[in-house]
Structures are given as C-alpha cells and as structure tokens.
C-alpha cells in the first residue's frame, strides 16, 4: 500500500490533491475542499461529502458546474458535522446550501446534525438523499438502498442548474429527480483493504464473486461463481432494468471500483451497451472509468440514468473539476 501511516492517509492525500489542482482550495485544518473562486452571490451552494476511499468522489467533483465544497471523512467513515458546517459557511453566497448525501447511516446522521446547526446560523439548507443501489431489495430490515453512482449524475445536473441561475428549491428538485432516474448495481471480483486494518474487508473464494456489492464492500444479493465479463455485464443490466423502466434513452456510468483496468471496463461496457440495446434502451451519454471507487477493489458498478431531456441538457452544461471537465 502506498501510504506513510494509517493515521495520516487522508491528510497526506489532501496535500497531494491541493498540489495537483490549483483550482481547488484545500483547508487541511478544517478538512474541507473548496473552489478557489468564491461562490457567485445568490447561487445556491452544493456541498457533499462522505468517507474517503472513493476518489475522485467527492473532492474530485468540486469546481465550476458541480460542487462548491466537499468534506472528506476518514477512510470509509462519514465526515463530522463541524466539517459540513464549516464548508457550508465558507461557500454560502446567500442562495442557501444543498447537501448531497449518500444513504449510509453515518453520512445521514452527521449531515442531519449539520443541517440543524446550519439552521441555527440562519443559512437555508436542503438535503437530498442519494439511494440508487438496487442490490438492496429488503429496505424494511436494512438501512435502505445505498447511494453510489447516481451521486455523480445528481452532483452534475444540480450543479449545472445552480450555475444557470436556479434557486435552492429548484436545484434540490433537480438532484432528487436525477436520483429517482438512476439505478445502480455493482459486482466485486474481490475485497478491498482499508489502510487502518490492512486486511481484506471480506473473504471471497478463489472463483467467487459478490453480486450487488456496496462501495465499502458491503454484501450484495448473493455470491456466485466467477463468469466471463459479458455474463457479468448482463447480470448488472438485468438488475437495473428490472427495477426501473428506462424507456428509450439513457445516460450510463460504467464505473471501475479501483483495481479493474480500463481495458476490462471497456469489455464490460461493450456488453452493457448490447444488453441495454436488447431492452430498447439507447445510450446517449456515457462515462467509462473510475468515478466512485472502493479503494483497491476489483470489479465494476453500472449506473443507468433515464435521459430526461432537461437532465441531458444539464449533463452537457460546462463543467470544470479535477475529475469531470468539458465545454468550458
């Protein structure tokens, strides 16, 4: 593992992020990542955050057209309300703050506390919960569907809307609609190892894979024997399409989980496009690469977003962040 010590992983990585991206302002002491430019007066500010280990999420999406600030927590551990409050105060331009929160108990509780604190400060706040992971079938007896790849779509579309002059309620609605239009499913070929434990997070047999894995290595629907890429792609396409009728055009994120080469992701992507085509779904926008990783986990996740026309326009709007940049 390329680390100096388990305790300094996040701080050391933030130092590198700052060095690599002059368009970002990294406040190492308060553990927040901001745009170098101040928020345009009146623009709603987008703040997200979560445990580290999913890079480029979220700090890699800070910049024009997406987030105004990100709060990185410890590896796989939600950030604390102090970070969220500091970030919100730093980027509020009078237009209020939208918290984009992935549905994990820790993230939900800490952002909830931050929202209460923000209200005391007189800053208007809205929270949008991202929960696109169809692998979680039983929401009654679990913490509910997890937030994964839809985060990228929601941060992009809502960020673009804010840039174009939408108010806080409208921006929040765009994020909610985007989340509702997305479904994801992940497949792990092996576990990931956190720097703190130095041990694999779960055990998989030599020829075993986890179908429906979560971004921290949470278990999915079942374990299955290893199969060719085309079959795995078909399983993922089937899972997302069984959950939502995409009816026509879709935007697709084929996401590498950290230890699967782009070569392999392209193999899977080809099968995904074929599989969606068979079901009458045409891919009109795509991202293939690492956007929501899980440390060193081998595998992929598929996110399909129904291509509602205004969402596609917002997706196409200019963006300039470390991990996504076009049109500007």
């Amino acid at each position, binding site marked *: 593992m390329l680390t100096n010590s388990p305790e300094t992983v996040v701080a050391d990585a933030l130092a590198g992020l700052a060095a690599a991206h002059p368009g970002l302002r990294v406040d190492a002491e308060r553990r927040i990542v901001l745009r170098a430019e101040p928020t345009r007066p009146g623009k709603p500010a987008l703040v997200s955050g979560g*445990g580290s280990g999913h890079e480029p999420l979220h700090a890699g999406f800070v910049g024009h057209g997406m987030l105004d600030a990100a709060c990185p*927590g*410890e*590896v*796989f*551990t*939600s*950030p*604390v*309300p*102090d970070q969220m409050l500091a970030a919100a105060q730093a980027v509020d331009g009078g237009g209020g703050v939208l918290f984009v929160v992935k549905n*994990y*108990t*820790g993230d939900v*509780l*800490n952002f*909830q*506390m931050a929202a209460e604190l923000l209200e005391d400060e007189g800053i208007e706040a809205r929270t949008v919960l991202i929960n696109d992971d169809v692998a*979680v079938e*039983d929401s009654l*007896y*679990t*913490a509910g569907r*997890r937030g994964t790849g839809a985060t990228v779509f929601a941060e992009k579309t809502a960020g673009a809307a804010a840039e174009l002059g939408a108010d806080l309620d409208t921006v929040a609605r765009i994020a909610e609609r985007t989340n509702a239009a997305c479904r994801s499913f992940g497949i792990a070929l092996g576990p990931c190892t*956190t720097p*703190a*434990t130095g*041990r694999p*997070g779960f055990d998989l047999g030599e020829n075993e894979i986890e179908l429906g894995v*979560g971004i*921290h*290595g*949470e*278990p*999915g629907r079942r374990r299955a024997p290893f199969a060719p890429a085309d079959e795995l792609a078909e399983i993922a396409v089937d899972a997302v399409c069984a959950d939502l009728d995409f009816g026509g055009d879709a935007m697709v994120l084929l996401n590498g989980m950290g230890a699967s080469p782009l070569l392999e992701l392209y193999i899977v992507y080809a099968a995904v496009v074929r599989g969606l085509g068979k079901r009458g779904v045409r891919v009109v926008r795509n991202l293939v690469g690492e956007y929501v990783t899980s440390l060193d986990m081998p595998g992929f996740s598929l996110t399909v977003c129904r291509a509602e026309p205004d969402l596609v326009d917002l997706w196409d709007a200019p963006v300039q962040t470390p991990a996504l940049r076009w049109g500007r």
Partner: protein
Amino acid sequence: MGAVSGMADDGRAELGTASSGAEAKDGGFDAALGAAWLTAAADAVAREAERLSMLDAAIGDGDHGTNLKRGFAAVAAKLAEGVPATPGAVLVLTGRQLISTVGGASGPLYGSLLRATGKALGETESADVAALAAAFTAGVEAVAKLGGASVGDKTMIDALSPAVEALRAAAEDGVPTAQALDLAARAAEEGAQETVPLRARKGRASYLGERSEGHEDPGAASTALLLRVLADAAA
C-alpha cells in the same frame, strides 16, 4: 429477565453489609466522577480498540475501535484542560467532542447519548441513582430517536436499554451509586452478548442479513465497555 432479578437479589444481599459504610461516602454521580470515568474511558477504548475493530470487521468495515479511540482521546485532552463544574456539563462537553471527532454513525449516536443525558442532568452538582437513571433514560431515548433502532435490531440499544432498566430498578431499591452502576454495566454486558444470535436491521451490518448472525454487535460491545469503566470509576 431471570438473570436480572437474580442480580438484584445479589445486590440487596450485598447492600446489607455494605450500606452503612457506603452511604457515608456515596457522593453520587458528580463532575469528578464523570471526568474520572471519561478519562479512564479513553485508556480503555485505546486498549480495546483492536477488539472493537475486529468485531466491526466481521459485520461492518472494521473501524469502530479506531474511530472511538480518536474521539475519546479528544475528550480526555479536553477534560485535561479543565473539568466543568457539573456532571451535566461534563457529559455535554464530551458529547460535543465525540460528535466533532468520531464521524461515522457512532459519533452522532454516542454524542447524542451523552449530550442528552448531560442536558437532562441540568444544573445538579451531584446526581443520585434516581436522577442518573432519569437522565440516562433521556439519553437512550435520544439515541433511539436519532438512529431509529429498537431493542433486538442488533445495535448499541441492545446494551443501553437493559442498562437503563437496571439503573431504574436500582434506584427503586435504594441501591448506592457504585453498586447501581455495577448492575447497569452487568446488564449492558449481558445485552451485548445477547446481540450475538441477532440479525442486524440497522446500519451497515444490516446489508449482511442472516450473515450478520453469530457476531456480537460492536456498538453494543463498546457500550458495555464504557459502562464497565464507569462502574469501575465509581467503585
């Protein structure tokens, strides 16, 4: 419940021999005891961090010990700068520190537990067992409300709830502070053990479904540890 009433019987038997001496020095739960508890908790959590993280690794992501260790170290550092005048203020300060340093679900949950308990203690300089039981009840209610967990969901509530019950029973029986806290710690330890066969319904472990059975809940384990440290500090 049989075990709990058995313990209460033991408690009363002991009470007969210890009461005259204990009553004189039963200062209740005051700021000094609160500070002694939480400072000792930092050592205990650091010592047990590996065990707590291993429990978490089995059904979560293996960082419960690391996260609590960071939080309680910050609490101990804060208390070393100065101890507030009332036990309520000690707990509120601790709760705030935990919320600011732990992260994950444990930070807000433990933070709310201590903050709500502290607030319920009010301005009192020393809480007797009844006042402590009432305040602790408010704290556990805050945790249940925030996390949405009930008894049997395989969470810290499974250790907290029996501990509160034990404390309330101790108050009714007129048991002195140190002994009441020992009964509460024992109840929490049993409650934590009873999470082993349960299936998790909250938090990250819930995604394991039946695969979460057969493992002690790390949150219930850390709750039992913290209450044992409190009982030891009061003894």
